[in-house]
């Protein structure tokens, strides 16, 4: 059963809104960072490897030049 009469009451958390929502917001920020950090790192590594790799040998798909 839903425990609150209104959205305002839900946000107020019986006067403890700052603590409850502060805890949830700060945690979500850390969790978002925990998900994003390894994805960004992986992408950066793959980009770096790609730049360092020799150009493809295949002549069938020329890049830019006619």
């Amino acid at each position, binding site marked *: *059963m839903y425990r609150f009469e209104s959205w305002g009451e839900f946000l107020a958390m*019986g006067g403890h809104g700052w603590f409850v929502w502060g*805890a949830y917001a*700060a945690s979500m920020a850390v969790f978002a*960072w925990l998900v994003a950090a*390894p994805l960004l*790192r992986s992408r950066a590594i793959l980009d770096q490897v790609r730049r360092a790799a020799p150009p493809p040998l295949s002549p069938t798909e020329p890049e830019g030049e006619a």
Partner: protein
Amino acid sequence: MASWPQWLHRLGSPREFYRLSGRALPWLAVAAAGVSMVGLVWGLAFAPPDARQGHSFRIAYLHVPVSFLALAGYYLMALAGAVGLVWRVKLAHMTLRAAARVGAAFTFVALLTGALWGKPTWGTYWVWDARITSMLILFFLYLGVIALGQAYRGERADRAAAVLALVGTVNVPIIYKSVDWWYTLHQPATIKLTGTTTMHPAMLHPLLVCIAGFYLFYALLLVLHVRAEILAGERRTRWVRELALGERG
């Protein structure tokens, strides 16, 4: 059909782990997000408020699972360190590095949510209580493992980090027992694997869902961080180059 040891050996190869975990990742992400969201919304909006603490009790749905995982994750990290030291498995050392990062962040969240719960409940954000102090030590242990892993290069760093992780395990039972050994401000565990759980089912059920959800979320984070460690460690190998070139366009 590969036999057990063969299968284990293949999974121990970073390349194979990267390939297989890539397939499991979307399912794990959906399961982790789904179960945690159900648990947290249930706890925030539908569970009854605590008779004494009121709505500030709802921080428990975050604080308890995250603290569980901060501790369980330390064992996992130490186990990875032991496997890496004994059998010299590269993937084990990569797992240790990943577990150290995720564990440090979870311990930080446990301390932070604990402080925000402590203020309305005990009237203070921080107290040098046995449980809280030993959790702070856990945080520093995680940071120490991260720092050692970065201080040296190669195998020396792996071994040093693994040794510190193993030595630090003495702290974990102290954290578990701290609320029983020293009678302090932090309340004793309400969920017990053996014995009776002193919590109303209407509050316990969403908490159990949250714990399951955060176990899944921890697994997801660990896999993501191990995959990044694999790419970092294997960046000069042929398969990573092929992977990088294959991802173009």
